[in-house]
């Protein structure tokens, strides 16, 4: 049996769940979706790709809580050590995967891009290496978003629902207090035809004017990868990727971005990707349509001159 942990937020099932369900269906040993929450029984109709649903509802599960979810899943999945458990390599999944591995004593493999009964592939070292791990018997796979098609697992239906009760969750040391919506930024990068996106290769905040000029000349928006936001050089609303926004512009110019899997997740569906990066082994070139290893500080001003 393959157990897929359903991820949902604000009443919406996340794509990663459908991606995992679609893959799990092809593995041939039956699929059980595990759905935790409160008042979420209506979501089971979207889990038609699963043969069965294990449903656990409790007021303490109304919002994701690392401790309550780990405790509940450890109780529900106790004794399933010979089965495969799939969880997203997401913010929620990064609590659940290691939490279940520790609680159940099951092996855990992270950054998973493919899996079977005998081997599991992970993308490590920022996507620069693939690693194949041998497995026999049960394991937990923490699956990277975008590894499988969501369409294959997004099937409505009425799988059999088995209701299970939650353990006592009244005294958790972690309490959910509220959900904070993203701040609206000065630009909506998901609405632009052209994005000039900047990464660590820009080196410092002052150098941003180099890419800003290019963005201005193209009437494009300036977006970025994670390190730029962590350094507070640009606002969170401009971040492309896993914890930022997914974008699909006509043209995406990646300047000094190496292409870590978390970034690729947010931009790989752009119509035309142009990558400028001095590292010829940067994973971004695997996803780009055009690339150059010329120094961005030479190429970008030269492009501006020609616009």
């Amino acid at each position: 049996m393959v157990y897929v942990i359903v991820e949902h937020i604000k009443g919406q099932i996340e794509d990663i769940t459908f991606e995992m369900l679609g893959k799990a269906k092809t593995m041939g040993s039956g699929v059980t979706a595990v759905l935790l929450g409160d008042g979420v029984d209506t979501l089971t109709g979207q889990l038609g790709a699963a043969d069965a649903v294990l449903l656990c509802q409790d007021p303490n599960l109304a919002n994701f809580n690392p401790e309550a979810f780990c405790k509940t899943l450890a109780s529900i999945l106790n004794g399933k050590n010979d089965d495969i458990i799939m969880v997203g390599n997401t913010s929620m999944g990064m609590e659940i995967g290691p939490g279940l591995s520790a609680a159940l004593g099951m092996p855990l493999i992270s950054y998973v891009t493919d899996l079977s009964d005998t081997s599991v592939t992970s993308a490590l070292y920022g996507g620069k290496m693939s690693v194949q791990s041998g497995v026999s018997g049960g394991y937990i796979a923490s699956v990277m978003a975008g590894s499988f098609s969501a369409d294959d697992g997004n099937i409505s239906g009425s799988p059999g629902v088995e209701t299970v009760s939650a353990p006592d969750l009244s005294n958790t040391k972690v309490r959910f207090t509220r959900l904070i919506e993203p701040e609206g930024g000065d630009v909506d990068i998901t609405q632009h035809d052209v994005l000039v996106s900047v990464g660590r290769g820009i080196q410092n905040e002052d150098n941003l004017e180099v890419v800003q000029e290019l963005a201005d000349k193209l009437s494009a928006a300036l977006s970025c990868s994670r390190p730029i936001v962590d350094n507070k050089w640009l606002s969170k609303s401009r971040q492309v990727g896993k914890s930022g926004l997914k974008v699909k512009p006509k043209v995406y110019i990646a300047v000094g971005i190496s292409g870590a899997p978390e970034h690729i997740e947010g931009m790989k569906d752009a119509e035309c990707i142009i990558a400028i990066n001095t590292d010829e082994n940067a994973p971004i070139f695997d996803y780009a349509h055009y690339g150059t290893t010329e120094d961005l500080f030479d190429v970008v001003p030269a492009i501006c001159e020609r616009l």
Partner: protein
Amino acid sequence: MNIVVVIKQVPDLVEELELNDTGTDLDREWLKFKVNEFDDHALEAALLIKDAQGANVTVVALDNGLDIDKALYAAAAKGADRVVKVTGDFEGYVSSHAAAKALGAVIPSLGADLVLTGVQAVDDRDGQLAVLLAHQLGMAHVTVVTDINVSGSAATVHKEYGGGMIGEFNVQFPAVLGIQAAAETPRYVPVAKVRRAMKDTNIDEISADAAGVDAGTEVQKMYKPETGSGAEMLSGSAEDIASRIVEIIRGKGV
């Protein structure tokens, strides 16, 4: 309050990665290592708490036979009160499960209210350390944390979800937090200050072992991912390339 920060070194991805002879690991002989960037953020988050309200910050690392001393001295130069090297058989690659076991044996003796470490590392094939460590220590955990507000024996923390959404939680100490980003850019420390720290700082050594604990699965092979069709690489001078890029952009009707 006592804060323990766990740091480790990872291969510097700026360098070309080569495989070992059996194709099951990186060739570590010539690899350049650096402190995991998220661990740097974890240290910064701890130092910000110390700056704001006072805290005793201890930085801990497994002795991996590399230049971990330098990383610990740099942490001391930045403001860590104590630096600890966990000695044992940790050369080469150490799985997250094994690291959690070894650190889980050492950290209780340091009296931690709060343990901070990076949200992830580029090599944690068997899962991220923070939550595994929390289980070893019997502590609460929240990972992917971007903001920590300490109040008494608890903290309000922000956990980042996709699309910029944030979950806010109240966490009772003792707890382990996996840090995605500190509220400030990790502070820079001049080389001269690190040199001074090398003279003035004593690295405490505590031994531990993680015997019998491994990742639970074996690496069969490691390889450079097969690139799809890949990018068409533009050649010529910067000017030629710039002209070509302008053509491509214009060709998309932009």
